[in-house]
């Protein structure tokens, strides 16, 4: 008797629990894998919840699958197994690999068109549009977290060293002079440092000085591009770092984001970093700081060109088991993320840039840049002047690995094991081997 009553109660509870579950099952799940942490991750998760609350047909499921490279490896393995996520966040350096394998993904323009969702690539800021679009204007992936490299300055250390933080150094000779003064007056342990060395000192550096990374229009002209950045202006930059590290005017802080710790701890007075790191610096640094454009060499270029985008974009995987309904959901979710208000919120919360012109104008109209000094520096730097073939980004296979080759070779130069020129020669030689291997490997794929 007792048992039967318990069973009945259990059945009733189970029945109750089932009904919302059934309602949820009716929703088509849309999976998205991301590789960002911190404020950016929290924001994206929040947008997915809001998307799910805004309609009843689809359910966006956002998952963090490790940092960008690990996440990519997991997504590629899932693709080989026939079941990739619907959407993948792919970092800047992986863009060339994706362009070389067009059968793996569906261009975002096409996803939107098939679903009948209004989408205008022309609304995106030029550098982001150029980076992620084909020559015919088809946008391959949706720019989401767009950033560029800028220089952060610790105002307190500047003042202590007798420098004026309202007049930040503009050129490399000025940066070195300021760093030397900081060291001489012992205002800080180190003058300047940089995160993402290859991204800042090779990629951004080459774009703003209008120098090519390779033949074939930085790889956009074809997979047969040959790297040729082992010239005097690029070698001088490395030599400058080597020389400046002797008196700690420069301190090397590691390959990825590690140098950020040296800045927020007050060890280094200046930091070259992704604008996407702005929110984290504002949260962690116990001092006033300001933002300045990337320095340049006035004898190489009088008017520096625009810098290039970094960050990541959203790609839609093409898999045999994808239904039209799922693709419709993907289009809806991407359109939700691409609304100007989402871009504005994301930019405000993280320091990444408003990816569309509309979002930028909204922020201007709201007076955001007046209230938050320095937040417009990256976007003004990114959109200044007329882009050249050298400042319109690049497209190489295996660029993630080539970046690390640059890191390794420069680290050896910083250890005094080789000259700056040898570091670049070795990077170019090893990088070209990797490009040829990639060219052969995808040769028969398309």
């Amino acid at each position, binding site marked *: 008797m007792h048992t039967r009553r318990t069973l009945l109660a259990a059945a009733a509870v189970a029945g109750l629990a089932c009904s919302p579950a059934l309602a949820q099952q009716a929703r088509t799940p849309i999976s998205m894998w991301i590789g960002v942490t911190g404020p950016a991750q929290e924001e994206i998760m929040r947008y997915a919840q809001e998307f799910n609350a805004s309609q009843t047909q689809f359910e966006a499921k956002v998952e963090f699958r490790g940092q960008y490279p690990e996440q990519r490896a997991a997504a590629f393995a899932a693709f080989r197994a026939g079941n990739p996520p619907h959407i993948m966040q792919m970092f800047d350096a992986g863009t060339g*690999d994706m362009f070389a*394998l067009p059968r793996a993904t569906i261009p975002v323009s096409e996803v939107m068109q098939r679903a009948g969702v209004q989408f205008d690539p022309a609304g995106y800021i030029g550098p982001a549009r150029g980076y992620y679009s084909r020559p015919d204007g088809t946008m391959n992936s949706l720019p989401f977290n767009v950033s560029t490299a800028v220089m952060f300055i610790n105002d307190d250390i500047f003042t202590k060293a007798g420098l004026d933080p309202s007049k930040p150094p503009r050129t490399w000779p000025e940066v070195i002079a300021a760093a030397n003064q900081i060291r001489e007056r012992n205002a800080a342990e180190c003058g300047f440092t940089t995160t993402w060395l290859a991204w800042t000192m090779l990629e951004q550096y080459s774009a703003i000085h209008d120098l090519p990374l390779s033949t074939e229009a930085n790889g956009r002209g074809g997979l047969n591009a040959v790297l040729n950045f082992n010239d005097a202006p690029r070698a001088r930059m490395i030599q400058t770092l080597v020389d400046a590290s002797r008196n700690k005017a420069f301190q090397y802080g590691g390959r990825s984001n590690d140098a950020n710790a040296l800045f927020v701890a007050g060890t280094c007075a200046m930091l070259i970093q992704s604008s996407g790191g702005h929110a984290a610096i504002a949260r962690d640094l116990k001092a006033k700081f300001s933002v300045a454009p990337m320095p340049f060499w006035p004898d190489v270029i009088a008017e520096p060109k625009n810098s290039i985008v970094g960050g990541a974009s959203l790609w839609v995987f093409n898999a045999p088991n994808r239904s039209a309904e799922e693709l419709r959901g993907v289009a809806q979710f991407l359109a939700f993320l691409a609304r100007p208000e989402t871009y504005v919120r994301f930019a405000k919360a993280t320091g990444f840039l408003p990816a569309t012109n509309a979002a930028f104008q909204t922020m201007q109209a709201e007076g955001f840049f007046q209230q938050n000094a320095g937040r417009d520096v990256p976007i003004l730097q990114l959109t200044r002047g007329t882009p050249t073939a050298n400042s319109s980004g690049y497209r190489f296979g*295996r660029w993630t*690995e080539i970046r690390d080759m640059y890191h*390794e070779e420069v680290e050896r130069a910083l250890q005094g094991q080789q000259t700056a020129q040898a570091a670049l020669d070795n990077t170019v030689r090893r990088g070209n081997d990797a490009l040829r291997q990639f060219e052969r490997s995808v040769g028969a*794929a398309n």
Partner: protein
Amino acid sequence: MERKVVFPQKLLPYLLLAPQIAITLVFFFWPAGQAIWMSTLLQDPLGFSVQFVGLENFQAVLQDPAYLATMQRTFLFSFGVTALSMIPALLLAVMADRVVRGATAYKTILVIPYAIAPAVAGALWLFLFQPSIGTIAYPLRLIGIDWNPRIDGTDAMIVVLIASAWKQIGYNFLFFLAGLQSIPKSLIEAAAIDGAREIRRFWTIVFPLLSPTTFFLLVVNLTYAFFDTFGVIHAVTQGGPGKSTEVLIYKAWYDGLIAQDLGRSSAQAVILMFIVIGLTVIQFRYIERKVHY
């Protein structure tokens, strides 16, 4: 003298063996076979184009001076880790062998590091040696040593060596202690009566009688240093600065997962497999002869 038990059932032994064989097939032969097959292919990151290239990947890997340098470094690193983890373990075991009170407590404490995941051990030592705030790095600076594993390859190597070896000391300690306790006390007492001092007793009696244990640990530790130190290196240096802490297992992982060059990564995995097979053969040849169970 040897007595053999004969089972009347012909099927039973095979059935009893089946689970073990199934596990070996699924977790060793299948992936190993795949690695061998993939090492003969050239394919793009997503597998659209797969070309058979024979032994080209092996040729490319073995002709790469960077790979050969990494191999040399791996052997130095592995012998370094082995020495650094076995010598202190032996010392500790000899001391613990004489402790009478609270022996279990000491033993437990000494074994704890073995239970720590390699990545965690790496992070721990990374903090201790962190140039600006590290508990060990700070005094080093005070006495005028410019300590910076971020940019100095030797410093970086020292950190990964210590972190990798430290983790293994507890394991080695246990085996040495067991080995010491199985040495007949009468031998040592006889030597003592003959007037042999402690150090002489150790080198002429204890150490030779420990040799099977030592040899077993040598092989186990070498295998550990070759394969299980990945977590430490990944957490502490990512192979850098330059390539100064890149070992074979790290390079195979990097080329496969980050560079997405599956062919060359598989070729490296196969080469590593032959190295471990070589080590195992040595182990069986020598240990089977010397160990008395």
